[in-house]
């Protein structure tokens, strides 16, 4: 069984068709990249997967479970986690609190009231912080982190819930080469625990870490394959590879 299956999903906004019968899939421990020019429907496709918008047509299966019309919170409970394009972390909270917010999301209100899981999570917070190079900043406010660190924090928050599927929307936007390289390592590490879907502008980055790449153009998947296959595809060349 595939981890995630997106079967000919269409999303229309009024008269505008943003995604047109797009199909992708992800296997366990696989990193799949989704590329395409701005406005090609990458983000929209990702949103139908994460539940921000509901697909007009088509079907989305997570481990065989139909999640096409589920709420985001149900998808999260089913094992999906996301990092948004612009890091959406809690800037007025400390790094520790941010991680805790993610960790305790599925706790019941009653257990939250009793601070029951605090001790349990403490260890996990430390591990995560070490992994994402945030250990020194645990008690700093998230707003005082650098741009790259904020991105990492959000990935860490996504990983905190031990997801089976990790969705990353432009994880390297605005990062320095060093940070980018580190991010690649982090994502590779993460993929040992789950499947990863990355939407990204940066072709080099995608080529480097993805097992498979799908190219989206004007709402259609025009090619899917390994990076070598993609690079050879004439259609892809035409719309994409001449661009920086």
């Amino acid at each position, binding site marked *: 069984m595939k981890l995630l299956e997106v079967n000919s999903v269409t999303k229309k906004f009024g008269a505008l068709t943003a995604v047109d019968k797009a199909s992708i899939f992800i296997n366990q421990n696989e990193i799949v990249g989704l590329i395409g020019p701005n406005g090609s429907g990458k983000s929209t496709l990702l949103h139908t997967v994460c539940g921000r918008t509901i697909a007009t047509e088509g079907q989305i299966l997570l481990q065989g479970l139909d999640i096409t019309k589920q709420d985001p919170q149900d998808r999260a409970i089913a094992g999906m986690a996301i990092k948004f394009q612009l890091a959406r972390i809690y800037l007025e*909270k400390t790094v520790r609190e941010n991680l805790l917010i993610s960790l305790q*999301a599925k706790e019941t209100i009653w257990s939250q*009231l009793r601070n029951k899981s605090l001790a349990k999570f403490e260890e996990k917070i430390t591990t995560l912080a070490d992994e994402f190079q945030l250990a020194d900043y645990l008690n700093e406010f998230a707003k005082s982190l650098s741009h790259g660190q904020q991105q990492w924090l959000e990935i860490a*928050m996504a990983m905190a*819930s031990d997801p089976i599927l990790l969705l990353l929307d432009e994880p390297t936007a605005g990062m320095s080469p060093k940070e980018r390289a580190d991010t690649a390592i982090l994502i590779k590490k993460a993929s040992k625990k789950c499947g990863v879907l990355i939407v990204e502008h940066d072709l080099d980055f995608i080529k480097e870490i993805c097992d498979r790449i799908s190219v989206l153009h004007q709402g259609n998947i025009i090619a899917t394959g390994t990076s070598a296959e993609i690079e050879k595809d004439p259609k892809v060349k035409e719309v994409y590879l001449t661009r920086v």
Partner: protein
Amino acid sequence: MLSVEMCWGQAGIFTFGQAALFGLGGYTVGLITKNSSITDIGVLLLMAIVIGAVAGLIIGIFLFSGKRVGELYVVLVTLAISYIFERLANSWTVLGSGNGIPGIPSPTLFGMEIKSIIGLFILAFTVFALILFICIFLVNSQFGLTMNAVRDDEERAEFFGYKRSRIQIVVFVFAAVLASIGGALFAVTESFVSSSMTGLGLSTTIVLWVVLGGRGTFFGPLIALAVLQAVNTKMQEVLPSLWPILVGLLLVLAMIFLPKGLMSLPATIRESLRKKSSV
């Protein structure tokens, strides 16, 4: 007041309807004492809690279950609820048709009557302190963090798997219970309830305290309350007709210059000083 701070400050639910729930608590006590011989404060508060919770639950479910609604919608609905409740309190004979329910007997505790002002003050203060303690505990608990998470970014929280609507309903019910207890306490200490304590006036006054004190901080609104009430009484003697205008102006100025409330005053001053010195 704590109720609005919980709702708005901590969980980001902007409500203008707390007065209706305050009134509900008050009228609950009024009706019970009028129609039965129950005066035990414990029983009365319990009833107020139950009624407040039920009302909060109904409104909360209506507002927050299912799809998200805009905050302006919440404002409008709570405003309308306050309005409807005030209207009912004015017209409904059972509720005293605008005159309210007078002559609520002094409360008893384990059969002992609390009659003196000091006694009532201690009673009110004890309940208040208890509630404040619970609030502080709540805010500092993991659930407090959850509330903040929902306040700062509702959608993000959903993507972590938080059951947003359930959390908002719980907070709203809790706030409703607080308001209801407040109303009940008011009723027993002042020994009457009337429609003017349910209306828009009170709702907006409470919001004003929270705004001036600083939303998201607990003791900001408390200080604003203490200061404003003290000033209020004095000013109403000195400048009776100008005072409401001054309050309005104060609020406008606060909105412009101190959007985060009084509690941010020191920080704001520091900030502007730093700016000046660096120029």
